[in-house]
């Protein structure tokens, strides 16, 4: 009976993984297929990667996405970690209300947030007499930071909650100055949470379509926006090629982070 159950569970998990990965595999496969019309039989060719290298629009959009995502990661992770530490380790007036206000942005549809941001930036631009300010990479970046901040605060906060404040207190009783406590106890303990949060921030930004689409001025696009536009025009396997590159890079990154997280993710003995 037990063996039968084990077999059933394994089969189930395999099916789940197929469900998750089959579309991705098919997409990646066609990135290496010669036919522009997704025709079979499969003929291995790198023609779409070559075409991608010459597709200035798509590459420019890709770089825009990468830079925005990186900038967003740095800004949102820094601000979010500081906020998480403030929430987790200090008491101050209005803390509960502020924490409660972190939830809605995650639940509100991006469409609504995107519209609100568009209207807001438009209003600001007009108010300062520079309507051009309403859209652009700077607006996209600000929108992404606002969107990813709650995620960072939650991920870092969860890590922080796993560790009792007593760790930092113990370090202080042992003679560590506040700086030594931060550097030798708080930082190593928080690091895996911060890395995970940074990854979240990067993913939220890199994936983001609605806000980028609304806030991008004509002629400036990010990768999701550009892919959307070209799909409407009828798409070629170049899209598959760039998607495959992105998947390879992000999965590689995930594996590295997973290793790091396990290394640093030891919990204190009794919780």
């Amino acid at each position, binding site marked *: 009976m037990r063996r039968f159950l084990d077999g059933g569970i394994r089969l189930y998990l395999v099916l789940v993984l197929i469900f998750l990965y089959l579309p991705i595999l098919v997409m990646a496969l066609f990135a290496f297929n010669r036919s522009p019309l997704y025709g079979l039989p499969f003929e291995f060719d790198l023609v779409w990667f070559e075409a991608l290298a010459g597709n200035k629009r798509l590459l420019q959009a890709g770089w825009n996405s990468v830079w925005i995502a990186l900038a967003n990661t740095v800004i949102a992770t820094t601000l979010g970690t500081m906020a998480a530490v403030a929430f987790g380790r200090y008491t101050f007036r209005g803390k509960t209300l502020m924490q409660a206000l972190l939830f809605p942005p995650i639940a509100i549809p991006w469409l609504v947030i995107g519209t609100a941001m568009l209207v807001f930036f438009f209003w600001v631009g007009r108010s300062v007499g520079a309507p051009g300010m309403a859209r652009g990479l700077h607006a996209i970046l600000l929108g992404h930071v606002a969107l990813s901040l709650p995620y960072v605060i939650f991920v870092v906060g969860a890590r922080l909650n796993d*560790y*009792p404040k*007593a*760790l930092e*207190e*113990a*370090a*202080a*009783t*042992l*003679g*560590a*100055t*506040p700086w*030594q*406590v931060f550097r*030798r*106890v708080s930082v*190593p*303990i928080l690091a895996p949470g911060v890395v995970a949060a940074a990854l979240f921030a990067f993913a939220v930004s890199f994936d983001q379509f609605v806000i980028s689409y609304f806030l991008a001025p004509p002629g400036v696009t990010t990768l999701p926006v550009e892919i959307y536009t070209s799909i409407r025009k009828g798409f070629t396997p170049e899209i598959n090629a760039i998607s495959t590159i992105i998947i390879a890079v992000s999965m590689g990154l995930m594996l590295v982070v997973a290793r790091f997280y396990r290394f*640093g993710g*030891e*919990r*204190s*003995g*009794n*919780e």
Partner: protein
Amino acid sequence: MSEVAVTGAIKRYGQVAALDGVDLTFADGEFFGLLGPSGSGKTTLLRAIAGFIALDAGEIRVDGTDIARIPVHKRNIGMVFQNYALFPHMSVAENVAFGLDVRDVPAAEIKARVAESLDLVRLSGLEARRPRQLSGGQQQRVALARALVTRPSVLLLDEPLSALDKHLRQEMQVELRRIQRQIGITTIFVTHDQEEALTLSDRVAIFNQGRVVQAGAPRAVYERPVNRFAAGFLGEANFLEGQVTALSGGEARVALVGGGELALPQGDLAAGSAVLIALRPEKISIEPGMAVGANAVAGRITAAIFSGSSLTYRVAVGERLMIVFEQNKSRAPLTEGSEVVLRWNAADNVVVAP
């Protein structure tokens, strides 16, 4: 080694006084237990001594020096936390070395003192382990070694044994006492386990609602509680209410509410005054029969609870329910419904404040 003197300590959180005028002196080398229900102020006092909490009023002096303005990391204290608070990203040796490392002690000396400290708690050989690879008792020892390696002037223990199972707890109590005696450090120990406090401490203080109800040697506090709270919190007690009817020859006669008579040493009792008597359940002998004379009452057993080495009887005496402990000696236990007489010595009647 050091003496810690607390005078007039007050700490309020909103309307609640966590410490409401506490005066206590912890003598050099003494093992002092702070005992009380949760929220009684004992942990607040410990954390104030550690420096995590600033008092609203009053002062704490260590060897005569007011420590109010000294930050935690300069107080030279050792502290063991309830869940040990071992650094999960460091090995056992690194945990113990931490306090020396942040003080820039030379590496060779660190190594020697870590070895010495681990030897003291009998954990040599586990230097390379991570805290999560240790049992609860071992983690406890690491926490103790880490707290002692810096040679602090005071050792603070915040319910250090509460996370251990009963057997291990008793073993660690013995260990704790051995280590404390060996290095002679002034130790202040917070617990809500009354037995633990009695076993370990040279002196105990019972806290309630931010105040010290009673302080003294465990035996003195147990045998002569000052009031109903102290008697009821530390061990069990029967409370008998009555009125002093006569004084003669150094002896006071007390008529109990609901019948029965006590004779007890006169002390400073006045004729006609109402008194509350605390009587420990193990001081009472229980026999089949009828009551005769003072310090004896008749009753009927309503419950006989067998717990291995001892028996607990609940006895209905008139309107009152009394509790009696008896060692499980050879005699067959008395059964529920039996008519019994309870007897005790005059000296076991302890007059307490309500």
